[in-house]
C-alpha cells in the first residue's frame, strides 16, 4: 500500500501526497565507525514521519544527512524529484528544509523575537547597506518578516515572552522558541531532533499539539526523531526504526509495533 506513488490516506483522513525526499542506500562512516549502514526510505508530502531507535542507533546522524550537515560516503539523497549534490547547510535551508536541535541551539543573549527573526534569514534579499539605510524595499522586507514572525509567535502562544532574552527562559519554552525559528522560514520539510527530550508530561502534550497543529495548519511535512515511544506512535503516520545503524522496520505505527525485530531491539535481545 505504501509503494503507491500517488500517496495514501491516513487513519484520521488526511491525504498524504507523493514523495518529497528519498534516501537511497545511505551509508555514513566516521573513520572506521559505521554510523548508518545502507538505509533507504522516503518522506511524503504532508506526512509526519518518525525515526526511532535505541541510543546510538544512528538517528541523529540520519537527520544530519537529511539536513546536509553530513555527506554520506555512499548512497543518494533525492529531494523534490532531483538528486541532491553535497551542499552546505545554508544551501539546504534555502531549499526549504528547517530544523531544530536536540541540544537547543538558540542565540542565548538575544530576545525571543530576534531569535525568531533570524529564521527569516534565507528569505531576505537585501544587503547590509540597504538594510542599514532601511528605505523602500529593505523596510518593506523587514515589515513582512516581522509579520511572519508575529504570526508564528501567535501560533505557538509565546507572545508573553516576545521581548525576553532566551537565556532567561525555562527549557520547555526554549524548545518552543526553536520550533518558532524553524517555522518562520516557511519550510517545506521540518526536521525535529528529539522535540520532547527532557520534558515533563504537560510540556510533551503541549509540544505534541503544536506539532500536529503545524502539520494541519501549514501542511508542513515533518520528520522527527523521538525517544518516547508513546508520543511517536500517537503523532506519526509512518515510522522508520533503526538499530546499530541499520533499518530494522518501516511502516505505520501499528505495523512497527508488531514487528519482531523492533520488539527485540527495544527489549534488548542480544545481537549476534
Amino acid at each position, binding site marked *: 500500500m505504501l509503494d503507491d506513488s500517488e500517496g495514501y490516506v491516513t487513519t484520521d483522513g488526511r491525504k498524504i501526497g507523493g514523495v518529497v525526499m528519498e534516501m537511497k542506500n545511505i551509508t555514513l562512516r566516521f573513520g572506521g565507525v559505521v554510523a548508518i549502514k545502507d538505509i533507504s526510505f522516503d518522506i511524503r508530502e504532508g506526512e509526519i514521519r518518525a525515526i526511532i531507535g535505541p541510543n546510538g542507533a544512528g538517528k541523529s546522524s540520519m537527520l544530519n544527512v537529511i539536513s546536509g550537515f553530513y555527506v554520506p560516503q555512499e548512497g543518494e539523497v533525492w529531494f523534490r524529484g532531483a538528486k541532491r549534490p553535497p551542499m552546505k547547510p545554508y544551501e539546504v535551508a534555502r531549499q526549504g528544509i528547517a530544523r531544530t536541535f536536540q541540544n537547543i541551539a538558540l542565540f542565548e543573549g538575544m530576545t525571543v523575537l530576534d531569535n525568531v527573526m533570524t529564521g527569516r534569514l534565507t528569505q531576505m534579499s537585501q544587503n547590509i547597506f540597504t538594510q542599514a539605510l532601511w528605505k523602500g524595499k529593505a523596510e518593506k522586507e523587514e515589515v513582512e518578516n*516581522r509579520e511572519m514572525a*508575529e504570526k508564528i*509567535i501567535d*501560533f505557538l502562544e509565546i*507572545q*508573553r515572552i*516576545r521581548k525576553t532574552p532566551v537565556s532567561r527562559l525555562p527549557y520547555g519554552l526554549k524548545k518552543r522558541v526553536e520550533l518558532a525559528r524553524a517555522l518562520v522560514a516557511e519550510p517545506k520539510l521540518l526536521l525535529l531532533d528529539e522535540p520532547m527530550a527532557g520534558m515533563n508530561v504537560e510540556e510533551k502534550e503541549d509540544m505534541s499539539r503544536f506539532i500536529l*497543529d503545524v502539520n*494541519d*495548519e501549514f501542511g508542513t511535512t515533518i520528520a522527527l526523531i523521538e525517544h518516547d515511544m508513546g508520543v511517536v506512535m500517537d503523532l506519526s503516520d509512518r515510522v522508520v526504526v533503526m538499530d546499530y545503524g541499520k533499518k530494522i522496520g518501516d511502516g505505520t505505527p501499528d505495523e512497527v509495533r508488531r514487528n519482531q525485530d523492533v520488539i527485540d531491539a527495544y527489549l534488548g535481545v542480544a545481537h549476534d
Partner: protein
Amino acid sequence: MAQPGAQTGLQSFPALLARNAQQMADKPAYREKEFGIWQCWSWRETAEEVEALALGFLNLGVNEGDFIAIIGRNRPPLYWAMVAAQMVGAVPVPLYQDAGAEEMAYVLGHCGARFIIAGDQEQVDKVIEVQDQLHQFEHLIYLDPRGMRKYDHTTLHDYAHIQDQGRAAKDELTPELDRRRARLDYDTICVMLYTSGTTGRPKGVVLSNRNVIESARFSSEFDHLTSGEDILSYLPMAWVGDFVFSVGQAYWNGFCVNCPESEDTMMSDLREIGPTYFFAPPRVFEGQLTNVMIRMEDATPFKKRLFDWGMAHARKVGTAVLDGRPVSFMDRVKYAIGNLTVYGPLKNTLGFTRIRVGYTAGEAIGPEIFEFYRSLGINLKQLYGQTEATVFITAQPDGEVRSDTVGVPCPKVELKIEENGEVYYRSPGVFVEYYKNPESTAGTKDAEGWVATGDAGFIEPETGHLRIIDRAKDVGKMADGSLFAPKYVENKLKFYPNILEAVVFGNGREECVAFINIDLAAVGNWAERNNIGYSSYQELAGHPQVLATIQDHVEETNRSVAEDTMLSGCQVHRFVVLHKELDADDGELTRTRKVRRRIIEEKFADIIAALYDGSKSVSTRTEVTYEDGRKGAISATLEIRDAAVVPVATQKVAAE
C-alpha cells in the same frame, strides 16, 4: 425620576453606538493587541462591524427575545457581539470562560441559548461536549478559526463568515433590522449576567437598558469621566463590572476599550496602554506590589536605598498631597524629588502614569497595599457593588478615601440598615428579576424596590461612610454569645503577603480555628532567598519554618482582633496550613474567587474535627479536579499548630 435617555432618545446601546459613530466617528473605540501591534477600530468602524454581525444574526434566524451566549476572553469582536445581539432584539449572556463544561451546560440550559459565540477552539470543544444536553441550542459561532478546519461545519460558523453573509444581505435585511432597532427602549432587557453563586446554582440577573445606562451615566458624572479615557478590559466579560465599564460607561462616554493580547501579557499591555481609568480586584494590586518588592530585593544597594528613602517619605506625606491636605513646603519639595527619582519611574513601570481614577472592589484590600498606591499619587479608591445593583451601591468620593470604608452612597442610591445589621439599597440600577426564578427575586427584592445585599455593615455616624463587616449569613454567634464574623479575621490574615487565602470556622463553637493557604509566589521567593529546598506546593506548605512564619502572622492578627471589643472572640486558637490551594475547579471558591464556606466545611470535615479535638496532626486525602476535568487525589499529613491568643475575659463581661 429623571430620564436623560428618554429625552434624547438614547435608550439603548445600539442608539448610543449610532450617536458615537456620528459624533466621534474617527475616535478610537476599541484597540486590541494582536501580532505584536495594537490594532484599532474607530467608532465608525465599530458601528460597521456591529451592524454586519447583526445582519448576519438576522440571516441566521435570530428572533427577538432569543438568548445569545458569549464565551471567551476579552476581545473587541465579542464586545461587538453583545451590542449586535441587542440590535436584533436578542439578549446577550456572557459566560465565564474558565467554567468547566458541566457548569457551562447548566447556564446554557437555564437560559435556553439558541446561539452561542465562542472565542476559540477550547470554548468550542466545551460546548460540543455538552451540546446533547442543550435542547434549544442551534448554532455555534467561533471567533478564532485556529484548529477548527476539520470540525463538522453544519451548525458551526466562522464569525467573519456570519458578518460577510450579513453584508451580502444588507439591502434585503436592513428594513427588518431598523424595525427591531426602533423597538428598543429603556425597558428592553440589556443583558443577562449569571452571579457566581457563593451558595447553590448560579442565578441569571436580568438588567434592563434603564439599569445599565442610568448607572453608567451617574457613575460617569461622579468621577467626571470623559470620552478621552482609556481603559484596559481584562476582567471576565461575564462579570457585571466589566460589562458596566467596558460597555456601559464606554458607550455612554465614548471612550476607548483596550483588550490585552493574552491573559499572560496583561501586565506589559497595561504598561503600553497606560489607562486613565482602571479597575482591578485587590489581588491584582497585591500581585503588582509583591513583584515590585521582589525586584527591589534584587536591585543594587544604591537603588534600594533610594527606593527606601522615597517610599518612607511617600508614606509620610503622599496621601496628604493626593487629597490636597496642607503639607509643608520642604515636604513638597522632597516629594517632588521623590516623584522624579522613584514614584514617577515606578508608576511608569506599573503602567499607572496616566491614571486619574482607579477602583478596587470585590474584596477588602489590605491597608498597606492601599496606602502604597495612594502614596505614589495614584487616585485609588474603593467601591462597593453587586450584580443586582448594576455595580454601584457606594463609592468613595475624591479626597474622602480610607481603606476601611467603602464610601458614601452613589448618586440616586438610597441605603438602609436593618436591625440584624444587613445592608439594603434602592437605586435606578436595581435589577429587573432573576431569570426563571420568581421565588429568589421575591426573596431579594421587596415590593418597594429595596434589595438585600446579604452583607452586614453599618454607617459611620461622623462621616456617613458605609463599613462592611461580613456576609450577613456568615455572621454568627460563638458558644458564649459573642459575635462571630469570619471574613473580618480572614481579611486581616490575607493582608500578609504570605497568606493567599484563609477560612475561619467557629460559629456556635467555644473558639475559632482557621485554614490557611500560603501564597506560592511570596513564600516560594522567600524559600529561594533562604536556600530552602522544596519540590512541591505541599512540601513547602508543610515546612516547619513556613509554619512558624504563619504562626507569627496568626498571633499578630489575634492581637489586632482583640483590640476590637465587639469581635475579640474571633481570635484564632488553632490553625492548619492546607496542602492544596483552594480552587474554583474543585468548587471551593466561586469563579470570582470568593470562599464557599459550606462546601469547604463538608469537604475538609476531618481536618476541622482534628482542629477541635486537640490532636497534633491529621492525615487526610483530598479529591482534586484538574483543568481538563479529570479527577485525582492527594494525600497528606498536616501539622496542627496552636496560636497564642489575647485573653478575652474582659470582653465577655462587656458583652453581658
